């Protein structure tokens, strides 16, 4: 038996790593079924208007074509929104219904589905479908729609509207000498995970379906598809064992699911639909948001007012919302705060949650405004943050469950060498390059959701834990195995984890960074239940050495349950299991967040991000040469997978600061760079030295002390880089990405 316990807290390699690098991890588009046919979706070429006619004649005659579905010939679909709202991540409005009618809401909308004998034939025939349209001029730029912005929308479930104003920010601002009011904008982004959206529907013969689909939570597509197509939930199983990145885009069911399932039911055979890379830009995106931040302060840096206003793009058919401005009411202590959040409709698909939705945008704006204020005051940007350090969440008037942000500032600054920064912009240089140092703060909720899990121990000493959550590449398999291995003092090699299957205990979609805390604690509870079960069995053995032992008095280790006070008195796991009469013992456990605790405390993760950039003075070429991200996010379960999450978040923040931009042609209403060649993300050469520091926190929000950290890594990263670019160049670019042209 290994002596590496506890696994929790170590840098344990991914337990699914070998499967992934050897190609044995199966993704949605890799499942196969006998007799399977292939589908391809045909995208609209207009962004707004109606389909007048669709010409299928050439496509129908193409080799291998079995069927072509359009809004005119499709199987019946429900006429009301209600079934489509069976989506745990739905937003207010009328959900998009693929192939429903002739109306076009956005460019690239599916207007037909070709079913053919091979993937290639389906793609080819799809290219032969033509349509005539009655096109209207689209609006795809939120700035053009800002005069139609509205704040009278139904709030989205789980997304708190901005808190009411406190104090009087407007009057305070007016009366202040030291103040600024600036507008900020981040280019629209798409998630761009490596894995394409895909659904493989396996027709099981008796009307039962097994659906392999890319999702962040199998129960959501199951609920949705059963409701929309009137299927018996007992006959539908959804799996998604591996997800090749999602970043929020696979929280909601997308049109691949409905179209593939519709085709499978119609033809009573298995169907696979894989969207193209271009079609990955016809769904969920980080919304274009126009922001204004106004700050005022006293001479000593004390903030006297904060006003943050956002106008965010949404689609014509839904009111997608994220709490963009809310953090501005709690990150710093300030008596006068006004937060305002509005929507404006444009002719695009509905935006969706994308890594740190709201915070990535809102805190970029706030943290750049804070930087601007520091120069206005002639104050070190870090000092300004410390001066206004919030000891409680003023939005909700609650103390924090834990907040080691001060330690994160301190450790981050030290590792980074923040004290080497000379205060003046353009004051540091190295050869032809201007050097700039910038910093920013990040903040994200520490959320939890009800989850269930089960644990099964078999006589051969192998433990299996399972939960219907997802591992979207974050390391869920690994941390659940670590928690379970510790519970029974097992070698982690003897633990298997299962996720991503509707046959497993219930879990909601994996998002909001709640996965580790929620699924982790559910596994903890399931293991505790299993221990109870085993002890009961052990006590029941004839002449049991543990006859009167209670759970508090025994230890589970070395394959035995033994009395803590007298290790000689023990029963092996195998004997206890044998007493059950079967070969294994299974227990279920559920976890739900502690409501009482949540009433009393506000739970957040924080980051302090420091960035060094070098900018060619003449040519505007920016290099990010050093980043330190110091993270305070509760208990760190696995230093390796946690570090990877932060690295990924920082790199994504770098993309936001310098590279990423979904570009729409304003006349055509069409994304023009819908591919990974022209949609720029950081390349290896862009990513240099990134240091991740974890400042541990003793948090009591859940028994394992987990806060989650899938999202905090991106928050603040873009602002730190943008602030460093200002420090280097003296140029304040308030529209991201900061490309060469903006620095000339």
């Amino acid at each position, binding site marked *: 038996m290994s002596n590496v316990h506890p696994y929790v807290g170590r840098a344990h390699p991914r337990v699914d790593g070998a499967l992934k690098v050897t190609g044995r991890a199966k993704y949605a588009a890799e499942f196969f079924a006998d007799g399977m046919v292939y589908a391809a979706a045909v995208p609209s070429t207009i962004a707004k208007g109606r389909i007048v006619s669709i010409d299928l004649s050439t496509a129908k005659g193409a080799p291998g074509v079995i069927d072509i579905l359009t809004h005119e010939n499709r199987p019946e679909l429900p006429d009301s929104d209600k079934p489509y709202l069976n989506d745990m991540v739905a937003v207010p409005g009328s959900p998009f219904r693929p192939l429903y009618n002739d109306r076009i809401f956005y460019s690239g909308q599916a207007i037909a589905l070709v079913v053919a004998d091979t993937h290639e034939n389906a793609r080819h025939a799809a*290219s032969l479908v033509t349509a005539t349209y009655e096109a209207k001029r689209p609006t795809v730029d939120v700035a053009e729609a800002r005069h139609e912005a509205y704040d009278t929308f139904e709030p989205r479930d789980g997304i708190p509207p901005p808190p009411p104003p406190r104090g009087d920010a407007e009057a305070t601002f007016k009366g202040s000498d030291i103040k600024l009011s600036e507008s900020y904008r981040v280019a629209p982004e798409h998630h761009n995970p490596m894995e394409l959206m895909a659904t493989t529907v396996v027709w099981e013969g008796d009307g039962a379906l097994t659906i392999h689909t890319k999702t962040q939570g199998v129960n959501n597509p199951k609920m949705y598809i059963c409701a929309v197509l009137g299927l018996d939930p007992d006959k539908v199983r959804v799996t998604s064992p591996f997800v090749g990145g999602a970043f929020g885009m696979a929280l909601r069911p997308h049109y691949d699911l409905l179209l593939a399932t519709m085709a499978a039911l119609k033809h009573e055979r298995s169907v696979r639909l894989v969207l193209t890379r271009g079609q990955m830009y016809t769904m969920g995106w980080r919304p274009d948001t126009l922001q204004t931040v106004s700050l005022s302060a006293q001479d000593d840096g004390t903030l006297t007012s904060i006003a943050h206003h956002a106008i965010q793009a949404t689609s014509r058919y839904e009111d997608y919302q994220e709490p963009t401005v809310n953090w501005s009411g709690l990150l710093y202590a300030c008596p006068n705060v006004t937060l305002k959040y509005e929507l404006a409709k444009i002719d695009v698909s509905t935006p969706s949650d994308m890594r740190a939705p709201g915070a990535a945008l809102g805190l970029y704006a706030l943290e750049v405004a804070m930087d601007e204020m520091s120069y206005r005051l002639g104050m070190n940007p870090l000092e300004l943050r410390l001066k206004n350090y919030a000891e409680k969440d003023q939005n909700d008037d609650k103390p924090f469950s834990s907040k080691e942000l001060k330690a994160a500032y301190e450790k981050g600054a030290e590792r980074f060498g923040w004290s080497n920064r000379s205060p003046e912009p353009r004051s540091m240089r190295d050869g032809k390059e201007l050097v700039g140092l910038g910093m920013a703060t990040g903040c994200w909720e520490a959320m939890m959701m009800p989850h269930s899990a089960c644990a099964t121990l078999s006589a051969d000493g192998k433990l299996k834990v399972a939960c219907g959550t997802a591992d979207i590449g974050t390391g869920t398999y690994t941390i659940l195995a670590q928690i379970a291995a510790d519970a029974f003092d097992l070698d982690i090699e003897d633990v298997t984890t299962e996720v991503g299957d509707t046959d497993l205990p219930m879990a909601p979609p994996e998002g909001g960074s709640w996965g580790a805390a929620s699924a982790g604690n559910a596994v903890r509870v399931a293991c505790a239940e299993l221990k109870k079960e085993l002890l009961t069995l052990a006590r029941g053995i004839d002449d049991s050495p543990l006859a009167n032992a209670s759970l508090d008095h025994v230890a589970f280790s070395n394959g035995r349950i033994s009395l803590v006070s007298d290790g000689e008195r023990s029963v092996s796991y195998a004997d206890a299991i044998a007493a059950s009469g079967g070969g294994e013992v299974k227990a279920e456990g559920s976890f739900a967040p502690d409501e009482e605790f949540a009433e009393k405390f506000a739970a957040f993760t924080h980051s302090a991000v420091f960035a060094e950039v070098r900018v060619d003075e*003449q*040519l505007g070429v920016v290099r990010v040469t050093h980043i330190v991200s110091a993270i305070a996010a509760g208990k760190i379960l696995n230093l390796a997978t946690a570090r990877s999450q932060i690295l990924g978040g920082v790199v994504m923040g770098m993309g936001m600061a310098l590279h990423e931009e979904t570009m729409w*042609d304003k006349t055509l209403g069409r994304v023009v760079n819908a591919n990974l060649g022209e949609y*720029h993300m950081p*390349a290896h*050469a*862009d990513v240099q030295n990134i240091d991740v520091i974890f400042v541990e926190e003793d948090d009591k929000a859940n028994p394992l002390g987990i806060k989650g950290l899938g999202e905090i890594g991106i928050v603040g990263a873009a602002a730190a880089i943008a602030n460093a670019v200002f420090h280097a160049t003296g140029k304040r670019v308030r529209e991201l990405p900061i490309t060469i042209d903006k620095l000339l």
Partner: protein
Amino acid sequence: MNFSYTRATTVGDAIQAVAGDPQARFIAGGTNLVDLMKYDVERPGRLVDITRLPLKAIEQTADGGLKIGALVPNSDLAYDARIERDYPLLASAILAGASAQLRNAATTGGNLLQRTRCYYFYDAGVPCNKREPGSGCPAKTGVNRIHAILGASDACIATHPSDMCVALAALGATVHVEGPDGARVIAFEDFHRLPGDTPEKDNTLAHGEMVTAVELPAPRFGQNHTYLKLRDRLSYAFALVSVAAAIELDGDVVSEARIALGGVAHKPWRVPEAEALLKGKLPSSGAFEEAADRLLKGAVGHGENDFKIELARRAVVRALSQAAAGTPQVQSNKIVN
């Protein structure tokens, strides 16, 4: 898409197969053509695979230059010892382009014939004069950050995206082609063309003509040269502006200069008068600026790409300084020296 596929065994067969069929295309590394087929921009009825043809050698020519077979992969060319030693500008330009994987697959001939990266050209769902003559040019009033500032026409403002070709233009290479009517040699500046009224034609090859080799004249500019590429990230992006600069010094004075720009026109952009301005002068930023201004004379932006004019001017000045100092840009180091 359905097409026939044949693997040519001789140059003559390949030419015959393509020349006789307007729907036929040569395919070499496929790094551009296959993408275009996936996007339904190219719909060849027949693919003639030329990768087995004996055009993979780099040979010495009688007048001391090198003749590079059309199928020499971009990587092999960049790392060839003779190229590294005698034509470092070419090696550098190749390594500034694409990614290692793409350079391994891409060929010398294919690189010359790669198509523009204009966004609209790749989207079969929208108009484009280059793809569908007469349908219009949405780039002119649309997203044109990456488009031409020089030599564009009312019909098309696309650029030629190659890095390698910019160096070849500066070095004064020639292109050997063979077609149904025999072989000919084309000067590099005559190979690619400006869009004019026929943007569908990228170059002066006739259908069925094959590039068999690219010839470099005897080595020059081994000391004072640079390839400077500016782009939207530090690697793996096409040039917003690139400059191949090469000079020869007679003592302290410039005796010969070559400047070619990439990313700014439908072909690598050279202006002999601009190069001549440097002759007989001491290298200085004043002289470089004068040459840059002449090179960019007549440059016009189309909105989003207005910045390229100033960027190109500064890039030319920097590149000439690098060349004059004998400190060429190192492609593996992202600091612009």
